[in-house]
């Protein structure tokens, strides 16, 4: 995980520095907003040498890594003139709140509806749920967000259009963000549950005279959850990606909207910081998923 993180750092760092125009020029332009055209060659050179921007990229990268590890300093925003770390700390809670709530919704709703759908295989309710799932995984998250605003905020006036702070504000963004994951989780839960229910140990459990609810909750659920957990891990990635757009639409002050704004403003250190923060969260969730998987499957635990 550490190694991957290091590689991700390197990749983003080099990506950020292949930008045409050169970093020094960008820094200057940010300083002299409105006077961009007056930037002169000398000024560029001056800045370059001040920040050691003339060194080869890999040296810059290792300097950056050293700073990051030794002092925790991962750069300073060109726009806000503040340490990137400070900005991230400011924005992180909002993103964690939104993504976390959406994840919980995705797991609870997705798993329970998936089980229900599997138990009602090929009945009407199963078909309806499957069609809903198909739409759920196919609708772009930002469009769902716009529709929700259109219906719940503008037409029904039930929820605020945008904002952050209260529970009311969380409602629409979380719904828009989680829909895709709910559908995805539900889909694998259904398939995995059906597969598990066809297993011989389920038949044996029935032959033992156990009631349906016990068969499902004790014998089927744990087995059926194994592939679901993997998918949940991947859904975290799509949630974090989706959060970028959703935060932007609902003016949610998280890392996602910071990332988009920084990209538009070419505020490279912040972009880099945001990407790192998001990837770290993603990898962390994957790590948790792996642990959970091993915990649930004794065949892995005891080789």
């Amino acid at each position: 995980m550490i190694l991957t993180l290091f590689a991700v750092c390197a990749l983003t760092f080099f990506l950020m520095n292949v930008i045409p125009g050169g970093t020094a020029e960008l820094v200057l332009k940010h300083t002299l907003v409105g006077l961009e055209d007056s930037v002169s060659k000398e000024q560029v050179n001056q800045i370059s040498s001040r920040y050691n921007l003339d060194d080869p990229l890999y040296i810059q990268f290792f300097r950056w890594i050293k700073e990051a590890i030794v002092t925790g300093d991962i750069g300073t925003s060109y726009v806000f003139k503040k340490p990137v770390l400070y900005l991230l700390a400011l924005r992180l809670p909002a993103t964690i709140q939104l993504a976390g709530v959406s994840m919980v919704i995705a797991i609870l709703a997705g798993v329970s509806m998936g089980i229900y759908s599997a138990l009602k295989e090929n009945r009407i309710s199963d078909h309806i749920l499957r069609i809903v799932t198909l739409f759920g995984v196919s609708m772009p998250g930002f469009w769902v967000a716009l529709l929700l605003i259109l219906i719940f905020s503008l037409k029904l006036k039930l929820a605020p259009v945008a904002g952050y702070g209260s529970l009311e504000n969380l409602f629409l963004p979380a719904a828009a963000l989680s829909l895709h994951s709910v559908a995805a989780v539900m889909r694998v839960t259904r398939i995995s549950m059906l597969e598990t229910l066809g297993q011989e140990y389920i038949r044996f459990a029935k032959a033992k005279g156990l009631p349906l609810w016990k068969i499902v909750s004790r014998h089927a659920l744990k087995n059926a959850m194994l592939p679901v957990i993997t998918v949940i891990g991947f859904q975290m990635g799509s949630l974090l990606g989706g959060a970028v757009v959703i935060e932007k639409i609902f003016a949610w002050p998280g890392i996602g909207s910071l990332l988009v704004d920084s990209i538009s403003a070419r505020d490279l250190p912040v972009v880099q910081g945001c990407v790192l923060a998001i990837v770290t969260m993603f990898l962390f969730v994957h790590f948790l998923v792996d642990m959970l998987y091993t915990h649930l499957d004794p065949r892995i635990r005891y080789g």
Partner: protein
Amino acid sequence: MDNVFANRLRKKSFSLPEAYGSQFAKRVFQRKDMLFALAALLIFAGLALFAPFISPYDPNAIDLKNKNLGPSEEHILGTDYLGRDLLSRILIGARTSLSIASGVVLVSLFLGTAAGCAAGYYGGLVDESISRVIDIFLSFPGVIFALTIMGALGTGIFNLMLALSIVHWAKYARMMRGQVLSIKKQEFVLSAITGGAGDFYIIRKHIVPNAIATLLVLATIDFGHVILSIATLSFLGIGLPADVPEWGAMLSAGKEFMRTAPYQTIFPGLAITFIVIIFSILGDGMRDILDPNHEGGEID
């Protein structure tokens, strides 16, 4: 008992490339949902292809007198904030999305197949290093990665294709690698190797034909994802230049007028959803046909 049954099914599914074509087509024709999706896709592609000839208006013709109109006889889907005909723009947008997505999927498929083949076939250090790279690429959430690359490259059709290909190839590579590893163990490959066939020959004749079906399923499903990514990036204003008609960008512009002209937010989104659903149905159907043991039993 279950074995007997499973074997029977397995026999029906096909592992030899020659059997693909005819059997596959027959199966597709037995499935109404796939037929329907296929027909819809053909219509959509046709519309996209001939968009310049069939669209009622010039998609870029600005007509400020008729801006933000609702659906009417003249403008079936209404007009946008510059008075441009929404239907024409959606049709031309289909062209943008489908062509970019085709490019991305083809490039990713090609790159992924090549990398996956190399990793799976040669193993050892080659596999180690390629797998590492794949892992790193997959540890970025897709949209974030694409955003970052676009941030570095700037907007543009070529840049968008490049960025999305960089993001998507790793999935194909990983799947291809897995396929190669399992195909490599099979008898006909082993006998070809013992028979002294060259690496390239074996890859071309035995490995790729046997793995390609699975990869095409992935490509089909992925096609929808790529379209979603294109729309998302454009929506954020980081994908295509503002003057290219694209569904995501249309939504982004339309959302400013949501109060007075909501259909501008509705129709382009419908178009995206529709096309993604088509690819979803096709991909799932193909997977069901290739892997009939996918679904399990029932419970009373």
